[in-house]
């Protein structure tokens, strides 16, 4: 191997050492000069083509970084001041994290003592790495957001200045006062208050606290927040119920932490009671992906229950078991009936669920509602033969009519609802086209 390398290297050797030499002159002090002189003398002697002598110059050239590093160490040995934390094991973990960062692993730059303690408590290596990676990603996102904000602030200031210059002191003549966010909030709250009185209840079952770890719980609460927001902004909000919410549990704490003072002003019903105590049992329908029954039509007199759980460890059948225990009706969304499912679990996030339910409540069309299913999970909508779908529906209507005759008007109401919304939203455009076509 050496022979091969040296042959290849013969030409480079001279060149390289000269390079080194010039660098040395510019950057390095006397001590290194001495070394260099030695190497130069070797290079400048005419090289006979024996192996041993060829090896020498190459080797010296290749190991030069070691001497440089060794000399550097005196300067570089200080950059890791081991801060005294009292707890020696904490410092070792901190050092480990620092070294891992140097080694190019995804770990956060700054880490608090509390986070370090969590790292320590994790039992396995992979758990530690995962947690550190999570922290690193979080840190990165925070940094990126801050930078973005700074940029924004800069441009905003510029804009303001421009606006001021242009506008001067004259006020515009407007029909309305500036429509502030406050006015929106007022309107939303008014709607939410109405739904508290007359709206259809929607229950979030908060009894899965013990099945989740901390991060899952945090994710759940984030999703709940989003749910509440979507609901508030919708045209005809649900009356949200957070049932089985115990006041000493992690859920409650996390919700308080996220909502702060707003929690008390929230227009939802939060209770530690169970939904079976609040609502008549025959009105309850538990929505769960494990159910064998399909929710073909959204019924406006039912109380739908959503289990508020983020299940990352795949504990199948949890909510279905719950519904079975309480002998409740269950249903799943008609995902397979309308979508060409591609991959991913059929359990959706809470905010996707509430968006779907809100849409199907307003429009009555599953196509419209199931647009909230993440697109990566399916390949598009199925072109189900209309006839077949019609047959399914009529059969169900018959069933409904047979079992509960008073439901019929409700159903009619739902259709009327759809008509209204169609007029309101996208339908108007289509209708014009038909009109045009006819003429």
């Amino acid at each position, binding site marked *: 191997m050496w022979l091969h390398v040296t042959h290849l290297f013969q030409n480079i050797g001279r060149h390289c050492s000269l390079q080194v030499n010039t660098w040395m002159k510019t950057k390095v002090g006397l001590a290194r000069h001495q070394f260099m002189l030695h190497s130069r003398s070797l290079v400048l002697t005419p090289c006979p083509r024996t192996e041993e002598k060829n090896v020498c110059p190459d080797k010296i050239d290749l190991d030069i970084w070691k001497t440089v590093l060794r000399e550097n160490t005196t300067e570089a040995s200080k950059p890791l001041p081991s801060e005294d934390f009292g707890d020696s094991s904490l410092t070792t973990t901190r050092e480990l994290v620092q070294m891992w960062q140097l080694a*190019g692993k995804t770990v956060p730059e700054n880490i608090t003592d509390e986070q370090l303690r969590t790292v320590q408590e994790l039992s396995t290596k992979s758990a530690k790495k995962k947690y550190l990676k999570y922290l690193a990603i979080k840190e990165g996102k925070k940094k990126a957001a801050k930078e973005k904000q700074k940029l924004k602030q800069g441009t905003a200031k510029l804009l303001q200045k421009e606006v001021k210059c242009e506008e001067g002191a004259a006020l515009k003549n407007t029909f309305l006062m500036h429509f502030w966010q406050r006015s929106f909030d007022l309107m939303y709250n008014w709607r939410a208050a109405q739904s508290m009185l007359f709206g259809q209840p929607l229950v979030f079952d908060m009894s899965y606290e013990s099945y989740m770890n901390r991060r899952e719980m945090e994710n759940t609460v984030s999703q709940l927040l989003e749910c509440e927001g979507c609901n508030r902004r919708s045209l005809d909000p649900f009356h949200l119920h957070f049932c089985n919410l115990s006041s000493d549990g992690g859920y409650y704490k996390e919700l308080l932490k996220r909502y702060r003072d707003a929690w008390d002003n929230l227009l939802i019903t939060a209770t530690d009671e169970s939904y079976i105590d609040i609502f008549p049992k025959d009105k309850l329908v538990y929505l769960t992906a494990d159910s064998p029954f399909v929710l073909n039509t959204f019924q406006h007199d039912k109380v739908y229950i959503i289990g508020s759980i983020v299940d990352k460890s795949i504990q199948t059948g949890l909510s279905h078991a719950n519904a079975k225990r309480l002998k409740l009706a269950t249903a799943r969304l008609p995902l397979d009936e309308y979508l060409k499912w591609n991959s991913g679990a059929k359990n959706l996030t809470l905010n996707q669920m509430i968006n779907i339910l809100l849409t199907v409540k307003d429009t009555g069309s599953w196509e419209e509602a199931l647009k909230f299913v993440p697109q990566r999970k399916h390949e598009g909508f199925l072109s189900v033969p209309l006839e077949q779908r019609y047959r399914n529906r009529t059969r169900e209507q018959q069933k409904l009519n047979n079992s509960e005759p008073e439901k019929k008007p409700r159903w009619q109401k739902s259709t009327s609802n759809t008509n209204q919304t169609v007029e309101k939203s996208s339908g108007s455009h289509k209708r014009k086209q038909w009109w045009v076509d006819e003429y």
Partner: protein
Amino acid sequence: MLPRHPGTFVSHLKCTFTPVVKAQGASRLLPCAFAPWSCTSSKFLTLSVGRQHDGNKRDSPSTHRERATRRGATGTSFSLFTAGAARKRAELAKSKLGNKLIDVPKEANTPKTPIPIKPLSIDDWKKMKAEAYNKTRFEVSMMEKLLSNHADIDIAKSLLVYVTMETGTVGYELLLKYLALCVQGHHLNEVLDLYAIMKTKFETLDTGAYSLFISGFSKTDRWKEAVIFLDSIKKMINPSPRNYGDVIISALQHKEVETAWRLLNEMEDRNLKPNEDTLQAFFDCGKSSCDEQYENMMMNILSYLRDNQIYPGESLMRSIQSWFESLPGKRWEGHRTTIVHSGECHICKTLLESIQLNEEEYNILKECVMNDVIQGKDVFKKTTPMELQHFQSFVKNRLPFDVVIDGLNVANISAKDIQSKILLEVVSHLAQQNLRLLVLGRQHMLRGTRSWDKGHMTAIQKYADCFFTSNISEDDPFLLYATILSGNHCKFLSRDLMRDHKACLSDKNTRRLFFKWQRGHQLVLSGYNPGRKMKFEVIPKYDTIVQSTKNTWHIPYEEEGMERCSYEVPCKWLCLQKRN
């Protein structure tokens, strides 16, 4: 005609044999003297639930493969739990699908910046960096490429020279990658040098650096420092089996047996599974030094293999064999062998341990299946308490059964016939053998649909006791429970591997018990053709586990090149026999 079996339990079964003609070349390909047996054995029996005649379903890998292809053509399959069975099933499924699933090999994406083949000068490196796609991490990614291509160390050195010239120092990450390259190429002096440098440059090192230093130092005379590195890893995280293995191997090479044992015990305390070459080092080392104490320790290792159901690989097996044969004065003799269904070793004629659980184990398993598999944390997940109670009273009145049938699994075995008819055929076939049957199913089977004929179902109910769970309940847990409750002679008929139910069990030991019980009690229909004779895969009578008697050791080992799933057991054995 029949070999004697102490463990025969269903004695009232009629036995019929259907010898299957084997490949003619089999005997030639077999390694040992017992070849004639293995080519005149039969693999499948027509329902010999209790007694299997001597059949040898294990041959050398080449014949195995030959047979696999032929079997694929005839549509039969093999014992569910033999090594390689899953792979063959997958191949069969693939060929049935018409090779639709054959994945196109991805085009090897050429690296954007090719690695140099010789050490470069600083200028060349500069040029390279200027052309490189990723300039910020150019040096590190280049070092990574060198590492993955097993490049020459001089190229890496020239890269380091370039980096020092550019920046005046070398970063930790780059040094770490270079260290990995040195360890990979066994440049031990370089490792020692690097240690000196890194020790002075950085106050502490990370775990990755330590484990690289461990594997580097353990090959040199300064191996004792590797023990210190191991200790410093321990302070931070749990060391890997590889770390321990490196130190142990070097300790054994330097005759420090005490240290090696201490570390091995420590590994066991930390619940780490030692690598195969670590164990092999113990056996290799034992050949030269042999005292009573060491021998006892080796026995401990073998019992560790037994307790944890670890099967040695071929190289470890060879080490074990030569260690035994090297023992002075004992005159051990080792042969590779296969075992006949009755559980008799060809070489020494010893009967291997029975696959049946003993009473204590059986009771543990019974309890665990009830508590963990059916009830679990929440009874409602798999069934309801009412249904469970109903089932328990149902079973209690009718016990014991001989065969419990998973109705839905059996009915779906073939698409050639409607489901109820297949089930009826299987049930009537078993009923002709005078067996007490229990068929488990779901209620939708009774509703009378196109695939579940009502007439067939009533006929089935004549032949067998039936229990139909609700449509949303699981039927497998009931199947397992009914089989276990019926006693040791009872078997269940299903193609299901029951892996999800095995996973429900709480600890490793019960899972092992379950698997052993499953191997001994699961009947599998080996292919089904309507109207033809029904064949069942043989159930081995012996347990595949490292085991010993007074004068013998039998050690199952994994063949090289044979893919074995976790739920399969190897079919090759090492027979060690003491000659007196």
